[in-house]
């Protein structure tokens, strides 16, 4: 019975697929109009939902979000909120162009030379706009949205590694706005392409823009380095971390170096020329991809060259060579028995290596994070596959009740094929009487069977010794 039903379903779907495909190629919709509606005219194109347009500041993201300052550098400005370790939240930066006087290189904004930590909040005060200064017209363009939600992937002591989701506009769109410093009113509408930094691509394509700023008219000798990433031309399809750290090989350590988990870095020092090592960390799936640029940074030239690119081992442990053994096994042909046997031994070996690593780390912690700590840190009810397997049939039954039919879209030779819901577009249109009779009979049989079984159960319940409990065969 079930096999017969499955065969019929396969036949129906196959016929519909073939008909829809033929119709998309040869326009045979006049034979069966239902297919013309779904796949005719060269095939319906799939509509991809555009990501939501960027907004200036999302003050609704996270209860601890406080957007309280606007910062500027030359023609650039950053609008940002404070963020806390370890609970990061949504962050955005944009460009504020008209507020600054580019000829003098200074922004008529209140200067707050106090970058650093305030309590557990890190403020990036470069140039701050007083909260009372609400006059003027601001031109604001948000081109990158950084989302920290659920972004913490690695915690090692006080070091937090993040996954940051970048959303970037395809271009910069300006919006004239009279600010009130309730920055949630800032909006940018433009085409948005959801882009994410791909750390596995050729990072030498990452174009680092260096801007050096010296506060000439101020009493301090502070200098600011802005490191921006041009993430164009990079295949962006995953979420990665980028972090910047600055070291000084010449031993002249700056003050107030700020390693920021963002795409710029700020520091202050007492001289005008340095050679810097800027280390950029990308993290992908727990592996730290380290990339370093050596930069000769002076008042006249800013030159950086790509120095190194290597993959650090797993962030916390020096495991025996068990990394992704299961994932990196070669693909054996079906008839290559020797290859399969080798694979089986490799898997057994990897299993024992992993077990030994587990107990080693459990007994001899490395750093501040142990496997045991990780176990409890990542303890969630729904993060395992075992329970999902057991509950899967129940979910299927639930779907049966909750969902209704929706057309299925297939892609065959780059041609989208839409299989319409048959009842409303085919059966009821072309064979209404037969379909009604069919449904009547089917309902009768189903009802008869179900209630017959229920009747047997009720009759069994009358017996005091009847203790059979039905269960779903999972």
């Amino acid at each position, binding site marked *: 019975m079930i096999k017969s039903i499955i065969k019929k*379903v396969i036949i129906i*779907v196959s016929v519909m697929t073939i008909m829809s495909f033929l119709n998309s190629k040869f326009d045979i919709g006049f034979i069966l109009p239902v297919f013309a509606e779904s796949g005719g005219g060269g095939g319906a194109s799939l509509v991809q939902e555009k990501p939501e347009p960027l907004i200036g500041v999302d003050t609704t993201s996270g209860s601890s979000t406080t957007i309280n300052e606007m910062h500027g550098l030359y023609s650039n400005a950053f609008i940002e909120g404070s963020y806390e370790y370890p609970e990061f939240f949504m962050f955005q930066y944009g460009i504020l162009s008209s507020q600054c006087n580019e000829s003098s290189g200074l922004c008529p904004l209140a200067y707050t030379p106090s970058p650093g930590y305030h309590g557990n909040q890190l403020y990036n005060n470069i140039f701050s706009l007083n909260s009372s200064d609400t006059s003027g017209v601001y031109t604001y363009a948000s081109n990158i949205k950084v989302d920290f939600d659920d972004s913490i992937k690695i915690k090692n002591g006080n070091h937090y590694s993040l996954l940051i989701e970048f959303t970037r506009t395809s271009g910069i769109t300006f919006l004239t706005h009279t600010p009130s410093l309730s920055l949630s009113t800032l909006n940018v509408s433009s085409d948005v392409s959801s882009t994410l930094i791909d750390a596995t691509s050729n990072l030498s394509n990452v174009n680092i823009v260096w801007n050096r700023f010296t506060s000439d008219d101020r009493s301090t000798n502070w200098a600011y380095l802005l490191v921006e990433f041009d993430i164009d031309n990079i295949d962006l399809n995953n979420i990665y971390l980028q972090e910047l750290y600055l070291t000084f090989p010449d031993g002249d350590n700056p003050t107030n170096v700020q390693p920021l988990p963002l795409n710029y870095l700020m520091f202050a020092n007492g001289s005008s020329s340095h050679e810097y090592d800027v280390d950029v960390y990308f993290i992908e799936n727990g592996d730290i991809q380290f990339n370093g640029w050596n930069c000769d940074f002076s008042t006249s030239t800013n030159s950086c060259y790509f120095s190194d690119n290597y993959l650090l081992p797993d962030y916390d442990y020096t495991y025996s060579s068990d990394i992704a053994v299961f994932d990196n096994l070669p693909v054996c042909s079906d008839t290559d028995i020797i290859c399969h046997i080798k694979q089986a031994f490799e898997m057994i070996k990897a299993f024992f290596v992993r077990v030994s690593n587990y107990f080693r780390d459990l007994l001899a912690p490395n750093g501040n994070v142990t496997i045991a700590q990780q176990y409890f840190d990542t303890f969630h009810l729904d993060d395992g*596959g075992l*329970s*999902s397997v057991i509950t899967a049939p129940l*979910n*299927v*039954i639930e779907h049966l009740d909750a969902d209704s039919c929706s057309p299925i879209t297939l892609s065959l030779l780059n041609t989208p094929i839409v299989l319409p819901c048959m009842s409303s577009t085919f059966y009821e249109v072309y064979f209404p009487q037969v379909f009604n009779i069919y449904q009547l009979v*089917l309902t009768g049989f189903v009802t008869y069977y179900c209630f017959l079984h229920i009747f047997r159960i009720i009759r069994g319940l009358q017996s005091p010794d009847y203790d059979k409990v039905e269960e779903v065969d999972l």
Partner: protein
Amino acid sequence: MNVLATIFINIATTTAQVLLAPINSYIFNNFPSLNDALISIASLFNLISTYLNYIVDALGIPQVALDVIIFYYGFILTVPLSIYVIKISIKWYHYLMP
């Protein structure tokens, strides 16, 4: 009755997740490949769920029949269990009463 079936399904799902949480977490942390394999099985069922309603529609199964089927499962998975609990309670009562 469909509400009853839904409640039962939710209870069963949550119970399974709670009971298996330690094992799930152990697998998740130490055997990610195995975890992925298990998730792939659940993904298969999700895939089935995605097309299930289409298949039901293609077979022309009316909503009344679907309601009867769901009622059937809701009944047999809840009522006999409830009756059994009541019966065993009465048995205990008779056993414990002098």
